[in-house]
């Protein structure tokens, strides 16, 4: 699992510390993070800025509110929102910091594709970032005074490219087309222009004479001999072989999330599914929020490299921090997991399986209320039944959750019982025809992952003719892998039923979406068909 031992060391020592939501750790490295730090100060937060090189803050405005650990590197971090403990390596040794929030706002790691293209770096072969710098410093224009200067760009010929790469290439071409005697070539697979304004920039470059070649399979080959660089390729349109000896060959780069993501990922068990990024690869995490409360990913850390979008990310971080503070004051999810310390044997199953990294441990496991999303995965995973979901204290008028519990305790009288994830299944159920709804006893659960074997068995014992568990599609679970846990458990249970000589088709697991009631409808019909044959022998009787 992803949790490293050091992420829990010293847990008990910090246990008594009070939570503090005023300080934010910003892992930065360029102007974006500086801008974020300044925005956070405006909003009344204090900032611990870790990064290199030393940033330039507007000093007088933020007297004492930004602490800058220049040339620092985050080595380890643990804790929960309100009380994160970070160890930062600096040239003068390790520094420990306690903060309420963590924002990973570092620039991407940029790795030139020399090896991928089988090219050695030399005077005539440079990577894109370096070339743009040279252009902006006016170093390339001098070369152009001779004859014609031929500049070739490689972009995503290995199949990997981002709009950010093309934006950079257009930046270069914008400078070059103003110079005389420069001919640019772009070799690519797919032109990435899916950002506002990029298509127009592409067209401008083309109209200014830049030649674009888009390849399917047979990418160009580069030959390097005695300081001569030669690109050998077959023109995809003319189906004819060509050779080009450019004066400069500019190679694109891989844009990767920053390395500082790694120690932060170590705090979030579900990051197994998101690595090397920090946010889960799911539309449920469209913005800067990660699976763990208080941890935020800006731009590259969440897989977005196109610079203009980062301005939005800065605002989203500010908004998310404030929202989280409001939630800590007024409750968050409907439910919260509670550990009975005397039952806990410290097996740490919950710590490992909590997708939100909400569980810490000292003498027993304990759930951090501000981080818990109430999904209930730990409840069904705990082998000692030491964890239960409790309702958060809410306003007295909100009694809908109370009704749920009464419903779930009722006997089922041969009906089908459906455990419905509140994100998907419950919505889909509400869209069913009333006739179909009447056939089913719905039990809304916070996540399909909360449905344990005992819940299903109890439903059968209580007289259900069949049990259906409806969770979200893989990749759409708000608790990242709750739906996978449910699918896995149901499959095991089906096997157990089959081994006991019972009809395993009385259980069914359905992945669906809130806007796909038809999937639920056909699953109910299927379950009806398969339980029809087994209603002769009373389900309750056959189970007991």
């Amino acid at each position, binding site marked *: 699992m992803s949790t490293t031992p050091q992420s829990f060391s010293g847990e008990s020592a910090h246990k008594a510390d009070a939570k503090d939501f005023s300080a934010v750790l910003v892992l930065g490295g360029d102007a974006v993070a500086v801008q974020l730090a300044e925005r956070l100060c405006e909003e009344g937060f204090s900032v611990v800025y870790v990064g290199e090189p030393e940033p330039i803050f507007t000093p007088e405005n933020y007297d004492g509110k930004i602490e800058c650990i220049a040339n620092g590197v985050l080595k380890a971090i643990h804790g929960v929102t309100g009380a994160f403990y970070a160890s930062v390596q600096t040239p003068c040794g390790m520094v420990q910091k306690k903060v309420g929030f963590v924002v990973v706002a570092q620039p991407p790691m940029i790795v030139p594709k020399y090896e991928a293209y089988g090219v050695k770096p030399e005077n005539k072969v440079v990577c894109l970032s370096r070339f743009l710098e040279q252009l902006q410093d006016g170093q390339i224009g001098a070369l152009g005074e001779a004859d014609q200067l031929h500049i070739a760009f490689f972009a995503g010929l290995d*199949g*990997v*490219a*981002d*709009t950010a790469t093309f934006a950079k290439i257009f930046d270069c071409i914008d400078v070059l087309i103003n110079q005389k005697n420069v001919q640019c070539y772009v070799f690519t697979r*797919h*032109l*990435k*222009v*899916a*950002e*506002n*304004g*990029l*298509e*127009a920039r592409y*067209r401008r470059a083309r109209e200014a004479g830049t030649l674009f070649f*888009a390849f*399917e399979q047979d990418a160009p080959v580069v030959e390097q001999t005695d300081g001569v660089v030669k690109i050998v390729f077959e023109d*995809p*349109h*003319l*189906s004819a072989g060509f050779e080009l000896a450019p004066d400069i060959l500019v190679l694109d780069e891989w844009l990767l999330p920053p390395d500082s993501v790694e120690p932060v990922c170590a705090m979030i068990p579900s990051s197994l599914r998101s690595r090397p*990024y920090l946010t889960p*690869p*799911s*539309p*449920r995490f*469209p*913005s800067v929020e990660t699976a763990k409360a208080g941890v935020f990913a800006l731009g590259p850390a969440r*897989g977005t490299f196109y610079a203009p979008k980062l*301005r*939005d*990310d*800065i*605002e*989203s971080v*500010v*908004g*998310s921090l404030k929202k989280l503070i409001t939630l800590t004051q007024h409750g968050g999810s409907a439910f919260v997991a509670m550990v009975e310390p005397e039952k806990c044997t410290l097996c740490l199953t919950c710590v490992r399986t909590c997708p939100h990294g909400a569980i810490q441990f000292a003498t027993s496991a304990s759930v951090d209320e501000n981080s818990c999303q109430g999904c209930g995965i730990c409840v069904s995973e705990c082998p000692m039944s030491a964890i239960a979901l409790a309702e958060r204290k809410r306003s007295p008028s909100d009694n809908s959750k109370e009704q749920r519990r009464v419903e779930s305790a009722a006997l089922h009288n041969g009906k089908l019982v459906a455990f419905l994830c509140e*994100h*998907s299944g419950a*919505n889909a159920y*509400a*869209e069913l*025809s*009333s006739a179909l709804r009447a056939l089913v006893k719905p039990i809304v659960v916070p996540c399909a992952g909360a449905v344990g074997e005992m819940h299903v068995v109890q439903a059968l014992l209580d007289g259900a003719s069949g049990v259906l568990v409806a969770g*979200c*599609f*893989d*990749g*759409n679970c708000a608790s990242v892998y709750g739906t996978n846990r449910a699918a896995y458990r149901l499959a095991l249970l089906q096997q157990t039923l089959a081994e006991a000589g019972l009809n395993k088709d009385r259980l069914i697991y359905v*992945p*669906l*979406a*809130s*806007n*796909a009631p*038809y*999937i639920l409808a056909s699953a109910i019909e299927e379950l009806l068909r398969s339980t029809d044959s087994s209603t002769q022998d009373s389900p309750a009787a056959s189970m007991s």
Partner: protein
Amino acid sequence: MCKATHVCQNCGACLVTEAIKGSQASPRIAHILSAGLARLRKEGSIFESLIVQEPVRIFPDSCNACGECVQACPVPGAIRMSPVGQTPYIVHDECARSRGDSCTACQDACPRAAINLSASETEFLVRSHAVVVATGFTPFDASEKPRFGYGRIPGVLTALELEDLLRNEQFELTPKERPIPRVAFIQCVGSRDAHIGRNYCSQVCCAYALRLARLLKAKKPDTEITVFYMDIQTFERNFERRLKEAGEELHLCRAIPSEVRASAEGGLEVLYHNSQGTNVWDNFDAVVLSIGMSPPAPVLGLDVLGRDEHGFFQPAADAGVFVAGACQGPKSIVESMRQARAVAERVIGYMKRGERGALD
């Protein structure tokens, strides 16, 4: 519609349904549906909007979504069950009453007297400190590209129409010339096309076409699908893996066809320039046009907003007016949600900073 095959395809459509429901459940959000802005005025720091709401003919509070009205309606499609929420809705242009007919079939059929066809327009005067414009985009009108035969040749449909048909399990193919049904997707219809003034990428079509094509393949595995494209745009993390998976199920062909025509056998023929450099006519049973996003329709009273060269709204110069979502430029669902968060934060920041006058 959900486009998941066996796993989520990251389209985000379910989140829209959920967001609408969440918004409807919020006591702090007032909804004036089927309504438009008639006038926007600013006095000091306060905006005054005149909102005109279409007649509310079906009362959600009385309706129990029994569907009797839909059954009773003599015009198919004039009254429909809503994909979100329980209340059916009347499609004004389809309804016989819009042509002067006095039909009251739905109203008469309703067992709960939830329908009042003679309801009239309502006007609201809304005073606010800020205005957010999020009017979305207009789908490209595929008949603007006559060479693809949309609206002229049966079997040519837009991706939106295909989505609708798939949702209702109504997409049926009868192969005309071969035993295997064949479907072509044509990308960039109304995008990246300077000839018709659409010198921009719509950003969502590659993703939605591949999702729809894979969903179609999952539902009807014997269908042969060709996707004609210019460049496949990056649409999410793990793009390369997704593209590879798609390439295993679909035939990806780098070419934008120049013509679609009806074949003698009743199918469709598509003319394109193949990788060997020759023009070929290929046979298909359906052609799906991946239409792009066009700028939003004009909004009355919103002359404070400038438009960019393509007609999308530009960020407002007027303090207090904010622009969000695809009315500002093409955006996917997930991108719109991401941006909405940031815009909300900007609005809150503006409200806090600004000199707020009293609303009444």
